């Protein structure tokens, strides 16, 4: 367990993130851990050298709402989640279409555990860009 941790759900995520922003927190990053049956997604925020973490437990096929409308800086890491874990992130400010870090020839969603077949991310031939 991390210090300053707050469990959130998909529905409360955006509100909580907005609350952090309101309290003057800085967006740090998002960490995703594949637990096998669910994804454990941690949103890290920082204020005065103290981390504040939101923990979201996401089902393997569920959509993840993007927080890039609240913290633009999150857009890159959310694209990364989409790439590496095959999590469908919705409403991205800039969508690299699953080709952010990976390219043609790369394995699909390589950091996703293999037990469940990945929900096919949007890997179009040319890569759809907004």
């Amino acid at each position: 367990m991390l210090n300053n941790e707050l469990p959130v759900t998909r529905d409360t995520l955006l509100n909580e993130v907005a609350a952090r922003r309101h309290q003057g927190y800085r967006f740090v990053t998002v960490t995703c851990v594949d637990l096998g049956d669910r994804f454990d997604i941690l949103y890290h925020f920082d204020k005065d050298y103290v981390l504040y973490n939101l923990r979201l437990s996401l089902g393997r096929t569920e959509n993840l709402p993007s927080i890039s409308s609240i913290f633009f800086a999150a857009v890159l890491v959310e694209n990364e989640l989409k790439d590496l874990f095959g999590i469908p992130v919705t409403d991205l400010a800039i969508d690299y279409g699953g080709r952010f870090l990976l390219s043609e020839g790369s394995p699909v969603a390589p950091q996703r555990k293999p037990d469940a077949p990945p929900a096919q991310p949007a890997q179009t031939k040319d890569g759809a860009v907004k």
Partner: protein
Amino acid sequence: MSKRTIIPFGPQHPVLPEPIQLRLVMEEERVVEALPAVGYIHRGLEKLVEKKDYNQCVFLAERVCGICSFLHSVTYCQGLEEIMSVTIPDRARFLRLIWGEVHRVHSHLLWLGLLADSFGFENVFMHAWRCREMVLDLLERTAGHRVMLGVSCVGGVRRDISDEGLADILRTVDALQKEFDEFVPVVLNDYSIKQRTVGVGKLTKEQAAELGAVGPVARASGIARDFRETGYAAYGEVGFKIVTETAGDCYARMKVRCGEMYECLNMVRRAVAAMPAGAINVPVKGNPTGEVVARLEQPRGEVIYYLKGNGAKNLERMRIRTPTFANLAPLLAMLPGCELADVPVIVLSIDPCISCTER
């Protein structure tokens, strides 16, 4: 056809030290839109923790990036030490600080050279890198390698510095101080350098806070945030002065880094003076269980390691968020509106380390 110019800036571009592509949309030479395309250095090393045990991963962490290599491994080790509740010896903390700060000097000198190269000031580039050779020689003498120090381990450091070595450090630091005293004011007051950096790539304090800028980029915009203030390693004992500027342009970032170089030298001097005797590492037994977020200040800013262990020799998850990753969003805010000639200057002003960013 359009009156807009669309060019790929990178990946193979001599002014960029590492492959990243910026798709620039320009009107004549004024950039109206810049979007990065990354993934040229994505190796996927986070997943390698599943194949290599946590001690081997010290070397893996060191090779996340060849410039701030030592500080990566230190962050990793600090994280593991926290999970495993290991207290490292005092001497190890001081050694980490010394190597860390010498490394920072090397990184900033490297950056200064590359920045000079980006605006075509070859002489500054050459001189910065010439000074940097002094630092690299020092690192090789004390740690055994110029770039990949390979001295970190979980529980302390692998290698001690003898008293003679400490004296050597002080001599080199004095020599560097002499070089800086001559060279840095010249660079900071040069007319043409000011022409190319003052007012270029502005990032206001609000933008920096909003977009989560870290490190010298944030400090140049007036945000006094530096993880060394939290006093990890021996920073608490040695004392530390934060360097900030308010203008938020490339020149301010240059000033911040130049100021930090002096500060690094001072810290090294104080650390050498206060160096405690004793062991340099403690044996670590068992395997890590639990999760932790380890953070410290790299030359480029705050680096974050999320580590999760489940009692096995291999970690379950390692996640690295590097300073450049955090600074990419501010970069995107700086680029539109600048001239094409300023693009490399602005890109280099955040001291990008793409290899860190993409892992």
